[in-house]
């Protein structure tokens, strides 16, 4: 019995069914099998991330063998003899690119899933509620008005994202984050974000019409999110940020599960609803902000990762969403960097162009084939 209750807390959706069928052997078995499937598929996603990560380092227009790779890394770490050409390509290009792709993918996927779960709205994600737009507007101002490039643009993007997050927070604080009935407070947060996103989006579009066409084209690439400027320097800021944020998200995952049962139930189970919500918002925003600063607002990863992960593993899961985010970014970048130039006369597409083009049909296919009621 106590195990059922425990599961009730972890998996609210299923408990009713579990209690109902607790007496019946075969069904319980099916259920256990399904749970195992969800678990296995999360590992499957993790394996996919590893394979894509390795592939994007070793394969592509410039292939590296595994022994060579270790030789290069070893030489780099110990200051030994370098392989001409290969060392540079691996250490300055392929490896940082893959790492930035991995980290931003994890961050975007997790951030989107946090927003979607907390606000109980599948449309909520940093793309929708204005965080990305804050980063974009700020970065485009930096590019178009001040002629900035490189790290300055990243810094501007980070500032923009955080400023919007602060604004949204101040706006929705009036109605306080802990809604008394339903998720009215959550809706308010999202709607405030949508309003801000619309205004900032307009500013970006307007600046694009005022800039000269070459600057506009450069801004467009940034706006789509690109791993081209991936450097060790970016990893240096991204990695420590994630080292703080990922454990934070993991720690908040449990109270988040309880929040899904409704604010009152969660409070009854000892969750400090207001504090947890604030923590979740800040974590999700910070994840989106650091990822955006590193690679630009890689389109739709945050929005797509949650729903795809849910349909692959059969249940909403934060780790699976983060892994799905990484899969999307790494796969899209492999395509954009290695395959697209063959099709488009050498144009290296920004990764964000491909994330949507790959992820969206996949989600649509999942939507069309899954016949779950909540699909």
């Amino acid at each position, binding site marked *: 019995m106590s195990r059922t209750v425990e599961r009730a807390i972890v998996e609210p959706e299923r408990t009713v069914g579990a209690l*109902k*069928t607790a007496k019946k052997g075969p069904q319980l078995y099916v259920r256990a099998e399904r749970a195992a499937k969800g678990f296995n598929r999360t590992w499957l996603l993790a394996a996919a991330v590893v394979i894509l990560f390795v592939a994007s380092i070793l394969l592509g227009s410039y292939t590296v063998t595994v022994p060579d790779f270790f030789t290069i890394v070893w030489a780099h770490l110990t200051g030994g003899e370098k392989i001409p050409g290969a060392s540079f390509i691996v250490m300055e290009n392929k490896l940082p690119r893959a790492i930035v792709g991995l980290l931003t993918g994890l961050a975007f996927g997790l951030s989107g899933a946090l927003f979607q779960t907390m606000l109980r709205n599948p449309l909520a994600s940093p793309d929708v509620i204005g965080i990305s737009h804050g980063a974009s507007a700020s970065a485009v101002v930096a590019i178009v008005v001040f002629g900035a490039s490189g790290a300055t643009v990243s810094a501007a993007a980070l500032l923009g994202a955080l400023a919007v997050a602060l604004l949204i927070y101040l706006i929705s604080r009036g109605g306080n984050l802990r809604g008394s009935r339903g998720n009215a407070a959550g809706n308010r947060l999202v709607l405030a974000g949508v309003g801000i996103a619309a205004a900032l989006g307009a500013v970006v579009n307007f600046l694009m019409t005022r800039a000269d066409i070459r600057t506009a084209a450069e801004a467009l690439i940034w706006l789509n999110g690109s791993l081209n400027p991936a450097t060790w320097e970016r990893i240096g800021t991204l990695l420590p940020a994630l080292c703080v944020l990922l454990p934070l998200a993991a720690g908040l995952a449990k109270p988040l599960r309880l929040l899904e049962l409704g604010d009152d139930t969660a409070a009854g189970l000892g969750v400090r609803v207001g504090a947890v919500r604030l923590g979740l918002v800040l974590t999700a925003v910070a994840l989106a902000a650091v990822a955006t600063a590193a690679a630009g607002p890689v389109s739709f990863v945050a929005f797509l990762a949650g729903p795809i992960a849910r349909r692959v593993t059969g249940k909403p899961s934060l780790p699976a969403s983060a892994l799905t985010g990484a899969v999307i970014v790494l796969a899209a970048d492999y395509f954009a960097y290695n395959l697209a130039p063959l099709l488009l006369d050498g144009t290296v597409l920004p990764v964000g162009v491909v994330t949507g083009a790959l992820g969206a049909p996949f989600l649509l296919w999942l939507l069309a084939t899954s*016949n779950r009621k909540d699909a």
Partner: protein
Amino acid sequence: MARLSARDLTLQYEQRRVIEGLRTEIPEGKVTMIVGANGCGKSTLLRGLSRLLRPAAGAVTLDGKDIHSRPAKELARTLGLLPQQPTAPDGITVRDLVGRGRYPHQAFFRNWSHGDSSPHDLAVRNALDATATTELADRIVDELSGGQRQRVWIAMALAQETEVLLLDEPTTYLDLAHQVEVLDLVTDLNRRRGTTVAIVLHDLNLAARYADHVIAMKDGAVVAEGTGIDVITEELVRTVFGLESRVVPDPVSGTPLIVPIGRHHYPAPQATETTKPALEIAS
């Protein structure tokens, strides 16, 4: 004579078959209670009877015609339904909500029907009146208490002015006084207007008291139907709920009253002896 009946009805969600080859009838002009354990398919049956769920096989007929072959609005003028825990749009007033029950009586292209004397307005007023919600008419539905809110939803179903009314657990979350109030209200409706009523109800004692006809279900099949006294027996409670109990006559109405035994109490031997004669007196 039944108006609403199910012939060899099979109902399923996706691949999960809940009800198979079920036959039953909702007798005309009576209050029918559908009872059974959690997950026995009673709510599913109600969804099938009210065309929310299309049968995988068999049919539900109203006055001899398949309900799925009739125009939806025409059917809705005869057959009304109140689902379990409906949601009201935020900020809607009681009067507006009850007025929305008039939908099947209004033409598609007519958005407005004005005048205090219009049949629609009259129906809404009658519905408010019957449920004692007239004073609440201009209140916001969200700010009402649970009992008031449930009365408002019933008022909406009344405004639909159907001859058959199906209610899915209308007393959930209500305190005992409000449960009785709601069932009294439904009984009034049945006695005064002759409305045929079918209710899915959890509380066996209340079901026994208010029912003219009881349908007991287990694992998607009807295990017994008939009058409350015929159907609700210790044997039935054991089969359907797996619960040992004593059934005694309700001191107020004479209908069966189930007294569960449980694991921590043992019935005094004389209790069983008094039960039988009492039941005979009641019948």
